[in-house]
């Protein structure tokens, strides 16, 4: 029965492990299950190729791997149009600001949006598991900063933060720099501005 292109047992073991897993696994996690003798990295490459173009695909999200259905089959699988968790506009903007600026303090988020963050906004994002506190920044007031999580990458189908849509363009246009810095650039004209991460004008 076995065709010549049938997978070896190492590949089969990685395949089964990822199929059975309830959450995305890193290479080390997989290795802990399949054992020493298996080259997990090359098995993953082989599997990704094998599943490409099928109804189920192997994807990497922030150095973790999982199987998911192919995006173009969404119409088949979508049971209801309604999104289970519909984010408020404030939450969407806040999430985008954190993702594109992380680590970023609350004051910086508020400076960009021009309004205070209402109480529930960050909570909702943290509850969804997309945002986490990312330590305090050295400096006046030692503000707490926020960053996105592994689950954020997984949920939004990003292999890494570099995959954020339009990230390079935004960076090139200076739109991720604070207003003060952009102002300095405009007035100096030489583009050599000192990086100042602290809050913009109110």
């Amino acid at each position, binding site marked *: 029965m076995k065709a010549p292109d049938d997978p070896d047992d190492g590949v089969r073991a990685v395949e089964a492990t990822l199929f059975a897993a309830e959450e995305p696994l890193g290479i080390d996690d997989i290795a802990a299950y399949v054992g020493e003798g298996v080259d997990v990295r090359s098995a993953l490459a082989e599997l990704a190729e094998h599943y490409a173009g099928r109804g189920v695909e192997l994807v990497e999200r922030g150095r973790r791997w999982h199987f998911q259905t192919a995006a173009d089959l969404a119409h088949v699988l979508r049971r209801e149009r309604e999104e289970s968790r519909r984010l408020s506009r404030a939450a969407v903007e806040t999430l985008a600001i954190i993702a594109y600026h992380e680590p970023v303090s609350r004051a910086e988020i508020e400076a960009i949006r021009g*309004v205070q963050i209402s109480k529930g906004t960050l909570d909702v994002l943290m509850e969804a598991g997309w945002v986490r506190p990312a330590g305090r920044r050295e400096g006046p007031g030692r503000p707490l900063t926020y960053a996105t999580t592994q689950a954020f990458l997984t949920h939004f189908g990003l292999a890494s933060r570099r995959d954020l849509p339009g990230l390079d363009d935004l960076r090139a246009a200076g739109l991720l720099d604070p207003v003060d810095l952009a102002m300095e650039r405009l007035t100096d004209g030489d583009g050599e501005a000192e990086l100042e991460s602290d809050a913009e004008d109110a």
Partner: protein
Amino acid sequence: MDDEDETFELVRPGSDEDRLTLDLDGWEGPLDLLLTLARAQKVDLARISILALVEQYLAFIADAKKLKLEIAADYLVMAAWLAYLKSCLLLPKDPDIEPSPEELATRLQLRLQRLQAMREAGARLMARDRIGRDVFLRGRAEGLTVVRRATWRVDLYDLIAAYGVVKARTEPALHVVARRPVMTLDEAIQRLERLVGAGVEWTALEAFLPDTPDPNYRRSALASSFVATLELARRGRLAIAQEGIFAPIYVRAA
């Protein structure tokens, strides 16, 4: 008013509320409102006319007031600031004013650009193939199991020491109390009361301590006797005198 109609539509797509009941809740603050008005100019934010935008904002607020809509304070603060900016922009240039009105206008423009950029980024993020909406994980994953096998760290010494503790705990250990070099408070009170007697001479407290070679017992006796003097003084039996902090303490019958 026609302009504003269009604006309401822009901001609140799908809103079927009667427009007369609209207030400013539809906007996430004055910057958001400004951005909406700016986008109605249908030009690149980099080439937008700040002056025209200011006019629009002020007109909008004026209309909202006419309709007796509730206007939050921060919208009014922004209106006041924009009115100031407008007057500065229209007046002849005054080089002494820092920052210049042009700089303020540019800053406003930069802020609008940044908010716009993040708004678009958020929309693109939400439009991605999202798990549970566009792509799906395995519905009934078998799950991976980790079987934890505990290996207990405990040696023979732990075992017999534990038995010693159990035995010591359940067997009465009276001898311990008897061996303690302690003068109890009751003992000290009785002793001091007896020794001071009716003596009216000021006498150092140390003079009343027992003669003992055991420094621990002496320390205990000193502590107990000191507390005893306080107690006896409280009862009006003796008087205490001390010239300064840490100076010798004297007692006599009261």
